[in-house]
């Protein structure tokens, strides 16, 4: 029902998981968490109507949301975990690092020194580096050139989409393909992409200047809190087993619902094929 449910093709992934037409996913009767979050799972700047169910990624987020006064909160796990459950692993040769510099979203601007970041990446990463930029930065030749001049491969996963426009159902699929090509995933801030990478089998790393959004106000404790609470995920070398356990919990990969339950929760219809089969009996 909320336009953010369609960000990154999330609703498309879940529709496919539920056996429905993923070219035109039905309306989710609720608000689906769309990114890793240290608050109640909701984007702080999104309009929220009380009484609308919240579909959250993890138990910890659900507890936090409850403590913040949210009710009708249900843990369903992240669309990324559903995508991985559907896309059987295709073991291919993994090489190098995919690096996600912290980015702003539509209308936001990052303040930071890209050249210094490039130096830090060079100092840490042993193999080839792919830098993935958000579409805003990707379109900026000036930003792209910082990384291209360093000899990094620069990619973009696509549009996030917004207000039902520029929806990009292929976003997560492209991200999955990229992550599976790389041995390591890294960023200057702990974020969804790092957790996605960990769950996909990459060794994680979080280091470098975390940069700032112009006018960024730390919500729920901001970066200092993230660095303290998830201290074990920060640094150039991280224990992969511990990281995986955390990623499973934060992405709710241990909490996935069977398709029938998810359809019931989202108030989605039964798949057409099933109707036909039942009619034929």
């Amino acid at each position, binding site marked *: 029902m909320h336009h953010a449910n369609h960000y990154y093709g999330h609703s498309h992934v879940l529709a496919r998981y539920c056996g429905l037409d993923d070219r035109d996913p039905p309306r989710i009767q609720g608000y689906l968490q769309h990114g890793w979050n240290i608050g109640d799972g909701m984007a702080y700047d999104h309009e929220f109507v009380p009484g609308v169910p919240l579909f959250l990624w993890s138990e910890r987020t659900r507890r936090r949301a*409850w*403590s913040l006064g949210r009710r009708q909160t249900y843990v369903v796990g992240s669309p990324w975990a559903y995508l991985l459950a559907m896309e059987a692993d295709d073991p291919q040769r993994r090489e190098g690092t995919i690096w996600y510099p912290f980015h702003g979203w539509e209308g936001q601007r990052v303040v930071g020194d890209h050249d210094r970041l490039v130096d830090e990446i060079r100092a840490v990463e042993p193999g080839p580096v792919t830098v993935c930029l958000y579409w805003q930065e990707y379109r900026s030749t000036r930003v792209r050139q910082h990384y291209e001049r360093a000899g990094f491969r620069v990619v973009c996963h696509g549009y996030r989409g917004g207000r039902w426009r520029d929806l990009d159902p292929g976003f997560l699929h492209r991200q999955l393909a990229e992550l599976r090509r790389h041995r390591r995933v890294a960023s200057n801030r702990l974020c969804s992409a790092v957790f996605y990478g960990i769950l996909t089998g990459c060794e994680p790393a979080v280091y470098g200047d975390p940069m700032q959004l112009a006018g960024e106000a730390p919500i729920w404790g901001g970066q200092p809190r993230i660095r303290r*609470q998830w201290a074990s995920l920060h640094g150039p070398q991280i224990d992969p087993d511990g990281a995986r356990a955390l990623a499973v919990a934060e992405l709710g990969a241990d909490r996935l619902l069977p398709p029938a339950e998810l359809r019931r929760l989202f108030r989605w219809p039964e798949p057409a094929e099933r109707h036909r089969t039942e009619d034929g009996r």
Partner: protein
Amino acid sequence: MSEVHLLGGEMLGWSDLDGAHGPGPVRGPGLAALLSVASGRTLVVGPHDPRLLDALPSADLTVLVRGLPDAEALADRYADRSGVRVCCGGPEKLAGTPPYETVVALDGLDRLGSVEGAQLSWGETFDLLVSVLRPGGRLLLGAENPLGLHRLLTSPPSADSDWAALGEYDDTRPAGPARLRARLTASGLRIGDAWAVFPSPVAPAALVNTELLADPDLTGFLQAVLGDRAVFGNQAVSGDRAVLGDGEGGTRGPDTGRDGSVPATPLLADPARLAGSAVRNGIAVELAPAWVLLGERLPDPLILADQPAAGTHPGADRTGAVPAAALLVRDGRLREVGRDPVGGWRFADGEAVPSGRTVEDLVVAATLRRDLPAVRALLTTWQSGAEAGMPADAVVVTPAGTWHGLAEPTEPMLALRRLASRLIDAGLADLWPAGELAAMLTTMSGREPGTSADHVAGAAAGGWRELLSDRDRLARELSEARALQDWYERTLTERDDELKRLRRIVSLLHGTPTARAGRLLLAGARTARRTARSAVRRLRPTTDGPTEGCGGQGEGRRES
């Protein structure tokens, strides 16, 4: 501001002390008095009113709370006391810390865990606290009763702190006071004492140790204490707001027992009545809203073997006092009760605690026996004595026949009205003439009934049960009044019909020739009689009218 030690898992925008997400911290002078058992290196876990913390030795005091704003406020409060260390985070971070001489968890174990950290069960948290208790050290542990009076009568609203609250479904939580004691014993703790807490787990107005509470001789006293409106009038656990103040400022804390605030949700029954009933039935310990246990960790057998001199273990030089058997808070003042060495119980000021039953119980029993002379004798004695203005449920009559008032006196008429309304609430209204019980009791007690004595009968209804009983009584009275009205109607109709029939006969007789002749004859006879009478009066002026006994007949004849 002094430093807050962030243990991890701290909740940034959360406060247990401000009462915005729940009932506020545990508080009150009763609990503060229990803290006299604390000594040495002390750990306090969970939300405790800062005024309780003030009562603790501050040379080596660690306080653990989960909300960062609470931790910052406490650090600020104790900035000038170097021995106080304020920690913030989940209890799991305590594992492995150097052991403490005293561990205080008066709020219980339910409000320790953070949303961010591990969700420990009751048993896991308890074991954790015992593990940081030094052999010989003392644990002061609160435990809410899921079947306590405060829960039986209302359903607590869903709170923001219930993100994963298991409550009574946590099978590691010992159910009931006996299993709670057994759990402490099994963990190597000797039970020093155990108190039942009334009326709310967080702001108790009465802490009564289980031995005193189970003493059948004290039934009347305990009913008076637990049925006190000052105790149960302050039931608003979910609605009241604690104050993280300095304890001396203008904002009055909710621990004075005078709050009188209206409960946030309607209660199913008058809690004071249920408390009285629980005492009468000997299950007040089991139905207490919470218990507080004092456990002392037994010296480790291995340590004992290493240190044969038992006097050298760390607990031996403790200065902590022995707390009272009962701690009663009334009007903000604390009254303590202890064991009398020669038997029975005494207040701290030396006054003996009276044994026996309340006047109300005696009146009810006499009423149920339909022993009106006994009821009259009780009411008369009560209303002619010094306890006339005290509620009948707060006056104890000892087996020796002495009377002890346990409340502040008010107007005798108010006390009588209260008794009437409590008898009605107890469902005894139908044993008395309907609708005028207060006046009836007043008359029986030898007093003149006041003008407004009946207007407030039943006004003390404390919950749905009393309202239902009132409704049933009023419905019955209404149907009886309607039946009476029907009967009046019927009787009136019968009389009307009869009257009509007679009038018809009269009118019929009126028009016949015989009647006309009769009327003429009668008129002539009357005239003749009048003439005769006046003639007689003139002849005998001293004779005054017809003789007595004939006048009625004469009048009747005259009118017919």
